């Protein structure tokens, strides 16, 4: 409680100081940013546009240490699978961007605003399009359910993380705009990058992961894919959890155990089993595009 009051006091102080001084970093009125960021509740009602800005800066920060896999046919294919899935969500209008990263570790993640990344290590571990759809659907669910946005909001209650994220996002956004006479803000961007990396290093709440599993499985089924393909992915990952494998460590660190996830999916599959589904697997198409 004392921490929150102190944080708010500092925020108000900075807000007054910065506004009074008219300090800007790359075209952003810091006084206004702090004023807006100080109201925690306002963040919960952020417009989609703000989510897009934050998402763009988040993905830029995450891609500092990764490159996009330079295989255009594969990128197109993954985007088609992704777009077929998002067509069935409550947020089909987001500017979704699916990308394969040139990274041999087994991982996939989402960023606010519709950015979904999957490593080629993860792709190499999959057997068919239904499994790919299952992995993408899980990440899509995080975006649909605003999980990363909510996580940032939660952090803002205990410190300045969200304030810095907003500033960082605006710095990123303003960097391309005319910023005549403004101060450079590498330190602010650096802190924002650290905040984003911190969130992605430790991962989302366990409950968010389980919710994304459930929505992802239902989304796969709705789009005509075999939803049990995702079970297969989790079972294979589960069999590797005890091993010291560098390529899976990041994935294991930020997700609940496969056993927990499979147990949690039981009720969802009870529901799925009540439907008469088409259950497409599409192993051949997956292989054709993957080999390209």
């Amino acid at each position, binding site marked *: 409680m004392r921490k929150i009051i102190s944080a708010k006091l500092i925020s108000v102080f900075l807000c007054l100081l910065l506004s009074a001084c008219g300090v800007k970093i790359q075209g952003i009125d810091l006084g206004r940013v702090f004023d807006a960021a100080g109201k925690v509740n306002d963040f919960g009602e952020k417009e989609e546009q703000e989510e897009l800005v934050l998402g763009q800066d988040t993905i830029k920060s995450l891609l500092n240490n990764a490159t996009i896999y330079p295989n*255009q046919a594969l990128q197109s294919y993954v985007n088609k699978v992704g777009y077929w899935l998002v067509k069935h969500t409550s947020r089909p209008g987001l500017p979704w961007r699916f990308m394969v990263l040139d990274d041999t570790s087994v991982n996939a993640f989402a960023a606010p605003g519709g950015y979904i990344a999957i490593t080629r290590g993860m792709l190499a571990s999959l057997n068919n399009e239904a499994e790919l759809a299952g992995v993408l659907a899980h990440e899509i669910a995080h975006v649909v359910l605003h999980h990363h946005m909510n996580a940032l909001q939660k952090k803002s209650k205990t410190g300045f993380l969200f304030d810095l994220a907003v500033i960082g996002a605006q710095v990123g956004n303003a960097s391309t705009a005319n910023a005549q006479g403004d101060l450079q803000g590498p330190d602010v961007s650096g802190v924002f990058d650290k905040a984003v990396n911190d969130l992605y290093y430790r991962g989302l709440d366990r409950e968010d992961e389980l919710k994304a599993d459930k929505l992802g499985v239902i989304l796969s089924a709705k789009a005509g894919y075999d939803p049990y393909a995702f079970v297969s992915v989790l079972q294979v990952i589960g069999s590797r959890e005890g091993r010291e494998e560098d390529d899976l460590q990041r994935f294991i660190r930020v997700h609940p155990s496969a056993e927990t996830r499979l147990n949690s999916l039981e009720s969802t599959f009870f529901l799925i089993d009540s439907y008469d589904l088409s259950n497409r697997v599409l192993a051949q198409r997956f292989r054709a595009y993957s080999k390209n």
Partner: protein
Amino acid sequence: MMCMIRFFTQGLVQVLLILLLSTFLPVWANQDAILLSNTPMLVEPSSKSPIVTQLSKDSPVILLKRKGGWYQVQTQDRQTGWLRMLKVRFLSEQESNDRSIAKILRETAIMPPASGVSTGVRGVSDEALNQGKEMSPIGLEQLENFVPVEEEVNEFAQEGKLKTQENVVLPGK
């Protein structure tokens, strides 16, 4: 001499066949697993199917194939039948090696070995992914180029015979 050549040729064909089959086997084919609870093993992949036998918790099985939410399995007394996917846990490579029965079963299983590795993520090989790799770097701003228009998405779905399952309702929609 002719006999030897024929024997050699037959052996070669068999090896090639096994290699070919193992290339297209899913990663879990021939996977060692154990049962998470007491479960009936069924004749068909359907909850209405007759029971082959009742299996107890921790029984070792080998996965042969998957159909929907079901795995076809082989038990240690070589019976085959179907189990619900969520009723099994895959064994790690270490666990597989520690369980001699599962090991023996694996060595004499109907399915060809999956590249000599019973567990581990295989799927599409890294080499396969590298084929056709175009070396020009792709920037974040270029991702827009891969976004398909709606017609392309619909055509892609049609090619794969993917159909929206109208009866499935997304939560909160």
